[in-house]
């Protein structure tokens, strides 16, 4: 039965309560990270469940593909593989040469970093926030601040983790900044997201800086978060207006941010200058010598906050 008189507390009181609770949450938001992490862990089954229909669709399109389509795809993949392996051979040669040259110069050699493929569970449905949720979390050793790339270039970095999932802030988000350099002349810049999927901007570029349309931007490794040398974006437009003190430079991310499905999580190698959570303030050279004595260069499963850098304002 519907009561004729509303019993209990009034709607005004409920609204006031809801508003007060919301405001408390909003104000205390930065202190609530641990609570959020455990709540997100508790709710991650919902995320898995929500990605199920999409996964089912993928699965059915794969299993009901015609023989022709598969043959075509196979052919294309074989062709690509041939091209790639040829490039890989050249790359291997270059790598060895580079190592020799670095050895001659006495600088530390690059080491291979550990990588893991992750699948996208959820894409932020909110135009002002660019996030994706991955199916790997703290249990797989993912840590806050971890670089994420795809086949073409840098995608973003991990900003929140739960036990089974992690959230990646895309480099197109307005709050994301990334130290980059131009491959042509090593000019250092910072690339900021604009909130558009296919556009990032370079701020505070002096008009006299040598930057041209078509320049390739790669990570500079200066923020101590991304390893050096991953491709980020290509410069699309350089506008110099008389009234402005800086040039307006926009670039297009190389990674296809609007259709990502599989991503690579990177555990930077300990001597690449990137600060891992469990080795903050350990100089690279010392760390190399100490490495065999129990302290593994692998990132710890539990996240520690990496030192703040410009990358995540």
């Amino acid at each position: 039965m519907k009561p004729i008189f509303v019993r209990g507390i009034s709607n005004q009181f409920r609204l006031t309560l809801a508003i007060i609770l919301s405001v408390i949450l909003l104000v205390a938001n930065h202190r609530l990270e641990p609570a959020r992490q455990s709540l997100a862990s508790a709710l991650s089954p919902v995320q898995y469940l929500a990605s199920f229909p999409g996964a089912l669709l993928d699965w059915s399109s794969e299993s009901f593909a015609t023989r022709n389509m598969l043959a075509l795809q196979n052919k294309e993949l074989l062709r690509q593989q041939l091209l790639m392996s040829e490039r890989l051979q050249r790359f291997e040669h270059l790598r060895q040469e580079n190592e020799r040259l670095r050895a001659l110069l006495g600088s530390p050699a690059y080491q291979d970093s550990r990588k893991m493929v992750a699948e996208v569970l959820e894409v932020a449905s909110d135009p002002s926030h660019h996030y994706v949720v991955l199916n790997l979390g703290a249990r797989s050793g993912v840590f806050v601040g971890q670089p994420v790339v795809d086949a073409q270039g840098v995608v973003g970095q991990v900003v929140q983790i739960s036990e089974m999932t992690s959230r990646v802030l895309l480099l197109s988000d307005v709050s994301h900044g990334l130290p980059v350099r131009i491959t042509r002349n090593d000019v250092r810049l910072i690339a900021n997201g604009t909130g558009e999927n296919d556009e990032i901007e370079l701020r505070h570029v002096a008009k006299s800086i040598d930057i041209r349309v078509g320049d390739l931007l790669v990570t500079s490794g200066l923020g101590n978060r991304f390893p050096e040398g991953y491709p980020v974006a290509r410069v699309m437009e350089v506008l110099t207006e008389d009234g402005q003190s800086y040039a307006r430079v926009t670039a297009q991310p190389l990674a296809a941010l609007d259709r990502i499905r599989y991503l690579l999580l990177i555990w930077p190698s300990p001597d690449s200058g990137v600060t891992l959570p469990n080795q903050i303030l350990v100089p690279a050279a010392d760390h190399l010598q100490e490495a065999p004595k129990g302290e593994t260069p692998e990132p710890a499963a539990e996240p520690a906050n990496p030192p703040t850098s410009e990358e995540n304002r």
Partner: protein
Amino acid sequence: MSLQAANGRLIVWLTLFIGLLSQIMPLPAVVEAWRPDWLLMVVMYWSIALPHRYNILTAWVLGLALDILLGATLGVRSLAMSLVIYIAILHCQRLRNFPKWQQTLVVTLLICLYHLVVYWVEFVMDEAKFNTDLFLPAISGLVIWPWIFWILRRVRRHYKVR
């Protein structure tokens, strides 16, 4: 019937859960911006139909769950949702008796308000950019609300949720 055991509580929460799932389901980028606010509309239906059982605090809890799942600042959607549901409950008698088109119009306006509040709070918290894409879900909501209303009313009558 077991679904009627707790006066249909189970079936109501099932519809709310489905609403939550559809809200966070990954969609292709083309239709992403048009995703209707499933959860808000389902909560709105139940609070219009049964304001003494599903009210502002239900909306608050679901808004919080949505905030956590979307990784947004905690409290943004719970605030917006409780505000909108409060207005819906204030006018629940009128909304129930409105002709379909008028009801749909009011619901669309409420959805717009919800997005405005979300935008406004995010603007205060961390300078969000205003984008007219904000209102696309209201347009798709305009199309979908009559169907949600129809389906949920059938559910309510079938399981005799009161």
